[in-house]
């Protein structure tokens, strides 16, 4: 186990100050499920300080505003899965978070941690992207709110070192997420494909969110998980589906476009021999379910 100093700041301000002060030598720890594993395997290169943010009150809480819901980054997956607000407003997020790890992991691991770690197999991310989640970031110098997609792209560009290494925190802390209210009658589904029925890393996952007005799709989000280096919406596919009705041909074409877009993004991986047909099949199945759900 790596050696480190464990700092316990008492406020959000103090947290970001420590992050500024120690830069790449420190890492914030919420639930700790990713960090502790990395420590055990000596993968936290150059980290000498851990900053405890698990119970910081400013990172916790779920509250409604006029346009949407605020979820503190420190909320655990269990809390999210049990939250009456999230269950009624964003069942897609509940579906995703309730399948992460085991109950013990869900009781500890946080939404913020899942996003900040940004593993390609992270289950919450496809759901959050479909829900147009915004990430609020704070540092000593600035406070900004950007789309989750931008956050993930920025992270990727900054680079995270060799695979498996968790590099030091940059000075921005993920404070929480803002999810704008969905339109009424929005349909959404999260599918997880794994090798066993519980406590399993996703082999691949899929989140689709759809709204139709008089049968015509006027809003759609489609995100495959555990397939792309940076999980993202398949925007070209979404554009294709917008303005159309869910006929068999459209559903078929949508699934094909999706796999094409994935291959274009990443090239052909060996795992794709399995994942591509499964992705296509799942997209078709979900869209058919949506169509029948009328």
């Amino acid at each position, binding site marked *: *186990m*790596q*050696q*480190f*100093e*464990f700092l*316990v700041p008492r406020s959000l301000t103090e947290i970001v100050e420590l992050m500024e002060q120690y830069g790449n030598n420190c890492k914030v*720890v919420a*639930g*700790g*499920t990713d960090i*502790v*594993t990395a*420590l*055990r395997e000596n993968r936290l290169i150059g980290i000498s300080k*851990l900053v*405890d943010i*698990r119970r910081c009150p400013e990172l916790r809480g779920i509250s409604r505003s006029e346009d949407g819901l605020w979820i503190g980054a420190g909320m655990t997956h*269990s809390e999210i899965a049990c939250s009456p607000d999230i269950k009624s407003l964003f069942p897609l997020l509940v579906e995703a978070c309730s399948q992460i*790890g*085991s*109950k*013990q*992991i869900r*009781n*500890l691991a946080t939404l913020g941690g899942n996003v900040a770690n940004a593993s390609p197999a992270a289950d919450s991310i496809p759901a959050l992207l479909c829900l147009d989640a915004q990430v609020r970031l704070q540092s000593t110098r600035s406070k900004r709110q950007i789309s989750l997609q931008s956050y993930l792209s920025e992270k990727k560009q900054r680079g995270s070192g060799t695979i498996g290494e968790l590099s030091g925190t940059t000075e921005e802390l993920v404070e929480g997420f803002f999810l704008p209210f969905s339109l009424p009658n929005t349909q959404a589904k999260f599918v997880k494909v794994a090798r066993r*029925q*519980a*406590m399993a890393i996703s082999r691949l996952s899929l989140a689709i969110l759809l709204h139709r007005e008089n049968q015509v799709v006027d809003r759609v989000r489609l995100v495959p998980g555990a397939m792309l280096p940076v999980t993202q919406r398949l925007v070209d596919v979404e554009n294709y589906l917008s303005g159309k009705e869910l006929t068999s041909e459209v559903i078929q074409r949508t699934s094909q476009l999706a796999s094409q877009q994935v291959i274009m993004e990443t090239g052909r991986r060996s795992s794709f021999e399995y994942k591509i047909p499964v992705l296509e099949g799942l997209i078709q199945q979900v869209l058919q379910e949506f169509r029948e759900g009328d």
Partner: protein
Amino acid sequence: MAKKRVSITVNGQLIDQEIEESLRLIDVLRNELFLTGTKEGCGIGECGACTVILDGKTVNSCMVLALSANGGVVETVEGLGTHKKLHPVQEAFLDNHAVQCGFCTPGMLMSAKALLDENPQPSEEEIKEAISGNLCRCTGYVQILEAIKKASTHADCQNG
């Protein structure tokens, strides 16, 4: 090696002592407090043998840095019951042959207890979900699920 003070309530008793910063909660329980009922099976939060209840929720104690649990309330198997007075779920495990090698048992019991505290009349699905993070290689889980179901109809559990 630097030390810091940690204050945790374990099985109702306040523990206040200096520990090395890198210790996990499981290390404090097993090696500082000699509460060896909690076991380490994998070290990465995948087997659940280290399950304890922290602030009312089950967690893998191998994944919690001890200092992160500062001020918290921890329940381990040692606090569940004694030879003289067993918790209903312990009695149920004994009566339903839910114990073979016994290594996963403490973690299982804590997951069961946490479930019954929150949900005194769980469905079979809910029981399965509650213990899906506790691996067992001996029993095939059936008698464990039956034991928890039986314990859930016991009066003590219903009173919460």
